[in-house]
C-alpha cells in the first residue's frame, strides 16, 4: 500500500533498470515501451534492433496497463487514470483522474479486515502472494 500523497508524487523517470517480467510491449517509432506490472514502464531506444539501448524507467507503482497516443502515455495506476507526456527523453505527468478505476482486488478475492479498515489515505498498488 502507498499513501495517496506518495502515489501522486510517484511518477519519475529513473535510470534504466533490469527488465524483469515485463508483460506488455508497445512501440512508437523506434522506441519500445515495456510495462513491468505494478512497477513501471521501461523505455528502450530501438533504432538499432541489434543493439537496443535502455533509456530509463518510468516509475509508475501500481501500473496495470498502458496505451500510447502520440507523445502521451495513458496508464491505469492503481485506482487512478494518468497521462504522462513522453518528450525529449523525459516523462512528465500531465493529468491524474483519481479513483477512476476499481481497487485492485487480491488474487484470492478475499479482503482481510486489515485492508478493509485501513485509513482512507492508503491506496493498494500491488498484491503479493505469500
Amino acid at each position, binding site marked *: 500500500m502507498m499513501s495517496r500523497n506518495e502515489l501522486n508524487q510517484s511518477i519519475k523517470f529513473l535510470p534504466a533498470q533490469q527488465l524483469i517480467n515485463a508483460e506488455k510491449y508497445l512501440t512508437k517509432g523506434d522506441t519500445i515501451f*515495456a510495462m513491468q506490472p505494478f512497477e513501471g514502464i521501461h523505455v528502450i531506444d530501438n533504432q538499432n534492433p541489434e543493439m537496443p539501448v*535502455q533509456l530509463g524507467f518510468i516509475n509508475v507503482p501500481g501500473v496495470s496497463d498502458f496505451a500510447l497516443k502520440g507523445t502521451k502515455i495513458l496508464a491505469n495506476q492503481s485506482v487512478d487514470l494518468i497521462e504522462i507526456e513522453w518528450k525529449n527523453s523525459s516523462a512528465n505527468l500531465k493529468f491524474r483522474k483519481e479513483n477512476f478505476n476499481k481497487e485492485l*482486488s487480491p488474487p484470492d478475492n478475499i479482503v482481510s479486515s486489515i485492508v478493509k479498515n485501513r485509513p482512507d489515505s492508503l491506496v493498494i498498488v500491488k498484491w503479493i502472494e505469500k
Partner: protein
Amino acid sequence: MKTLIKTLFLFAFCFALVSCEDDPVQPNENNYVNVGTPKMLSIGNMLVIYDGENVSQYSTVTNQPVFVKKLLDIFYEKEVALKKLDDIHFAVATESSTAIFEIDGNNVNLIDHSFFSICNNFAAAQNAFARVHHSAFSNSNYCPETNPDVEIFERDAQWNLTQVATIIEAENAGIAFYGDTLFICKNGVSAYALDALLQPQFITNIAGIYAEEITIKNNLLLVQTPEGLSQIRFKNKQFKLLSEI
C-alpha cells in the same frame, strides 16, 4: 489464588497475542470481492478502458479522455483482455466469452459476443486473446489457441467459425500473424505459411526461445520471454536473432 490469577492472566495474554498476530478471514459476502485488473486500449480516436467492472469508450480528441458510453458489463470475471484486431475492430476477451466491437466513425457497435462458442475450456482470457488475435492480420481466418494445440478457423462475414486446421503440441504461449505467416511458440518460435485452404505449412523455426507473447512490427518480432525481450528478424523465410535484453 495468586497462581490462578497469574495463570488466567497468562492465558489472556497469549490469547491476545494470537489474535493480534493472525487475521483469520472467512469468505463471506462482506469480504469477497471479484473485480479485474484495470486494462486499456488505444484505437483510433478513442480509448477503451476496463476499470475492473465495466468496459467503456472514451474520446481522446480533447486534452483529457472524455467518457462516451459504457460498452460492456463484466460480471464476476477477473481475467479480462482488450485486444486491437485491426484499425476498426477490437475484442474484449474474458474467461468465458469474447465480444467483438466495430468502430463506425465515432460510434462503437457490438458485432459479436460469443460465450464458449469455440472452446469450452478456456483456462484464461489469454487463450481467448489469442484466438481473436489472428483475425486482425488475416481477416479471413480466426485462430484460437487451445491447450496445447493451435487451431485455425475460417470465419465468414457474420463471424461464424469453421475449424480448418490444427497445429498440434504447440506450447500454448505466444502466437501472432503477419500477413499469411503465422508465428507460434513450438520448439522455440516457429513460422508457418497459411495456404489458400488455410492449412499451415511449416517454414522454419528458431530454437531455444520460449515466447510468452509475440508482437510484430514489419518483419521484426518482439518476443517476450521469461528472461526479457528478444528481437528476431524474419526475412527470406529465415529467422535471425538480433538481440536480447
